[in-house]
């Protein structure tokens, strides 16, 4: 399993996911730093993400949209709070309107990503903290859909992989 552990804090509405990868820290950092790589995993295969802006510097902004099966678009924004390459990344993630402008009252998720070497592998820890705002359910609803659609896509990928192996 890629994910080795996860911790949920119900009171703080936070989720910590720890994953380990067969690659060095510098290589894993690229999947955040390079928008072309980022968009290959941020959204599920059925809702792929496209990053139109990705200013990977502290205070920089990113804007992206995810395209659904019917061609519908869901837009999001990031703000890079802190970047300490290749070990630590902090960013806020929220919804955007059709023009890519942040929707202020939709709430944000604060993400803290840390990469640590374990031999020639990498441990990635992602701590996501929700702002407990009344519209937060939309973020989770979006995630849930991702989760469901993604689960199906994942099965396809596993099947394709076992055929080619």
């Amino acid at each position, binding site marked *: 399993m*890629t*994910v080795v552990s*996860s911790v*949920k804090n*119900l*009171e*703080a*509405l936070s*989720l910590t*996911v720890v*994953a380990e*990868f*067969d*690659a*060095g*820290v*510098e*290589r*894993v*950092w*690229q*999947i955040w*730093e*390079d*928008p*072309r*790589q*980022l968009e*290959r*995993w*941020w959204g*599920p295969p059925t809702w792929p993400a496209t990053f139109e802006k990705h200013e990977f510097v502290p205070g920089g902004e990113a804007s992206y949209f995810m395209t*659904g099966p019917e061609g*519908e678009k*869901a837009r999001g924004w990031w703000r890079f709070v802190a970047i300490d390459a290749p070990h630590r990344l902090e960013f806020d993630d929220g919804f955007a309107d059709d023009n890519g402008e942040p929707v202020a009252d939709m709430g944000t998720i604060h993400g803290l990503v840390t990469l640590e070497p374990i031999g*020639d592998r990498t441990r*990635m820890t*992602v701590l*996501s903290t*929700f702002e*407990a705002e*009344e*519209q*937060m*359910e*939309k973020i*989770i*609803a*979006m*995630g*849930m*859909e*991702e*989760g*469901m659609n*993604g*689960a199906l896509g*994942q099965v396809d*990928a596993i099947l394709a992989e076992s055929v*080619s192996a």
Partner: protein
Amino acid sequence: MVVDQLRAQHSEQEIDRLFQAFADTTRRDIVRRVTVGEYSVSGLAALYAMSFAAVQKHVAVLERASLVAKEKRGREQIVRANHDGLQRARRLLDEYEVIWRQRADRIADLLAETATAKPGRIQAGNTKTSKTETGKSKDRKGLS
């Protein structure tokens, strides 16, 4: 977005209330306490630097969000955890966890793929066990 899937299981109002309930530190503290024991409203009120009425209001918000239940016992109002409501909050976080598990799997696939896409090609189908470090390569086509 298709929010319907979530709405099928949790009404919108229900979820609004849930997150509103968690938006306050006193309310989170009350939830924490009543999950391990019973408290009367006046017992809770004694714990915080606020009026009985203010604590009562917090308890009411938690009650509407189905996180706690109130029960009259003699002259006391006993506050207990509502485990069904707490379960629902947990389920929402569970759903978010699924998203991250799938992202991690996609990252692993992406990393395995770039490990084989190098000029000094590693045998296909054996990428996951490869310990070849490709991270220091100049494979940054996304950055111009």
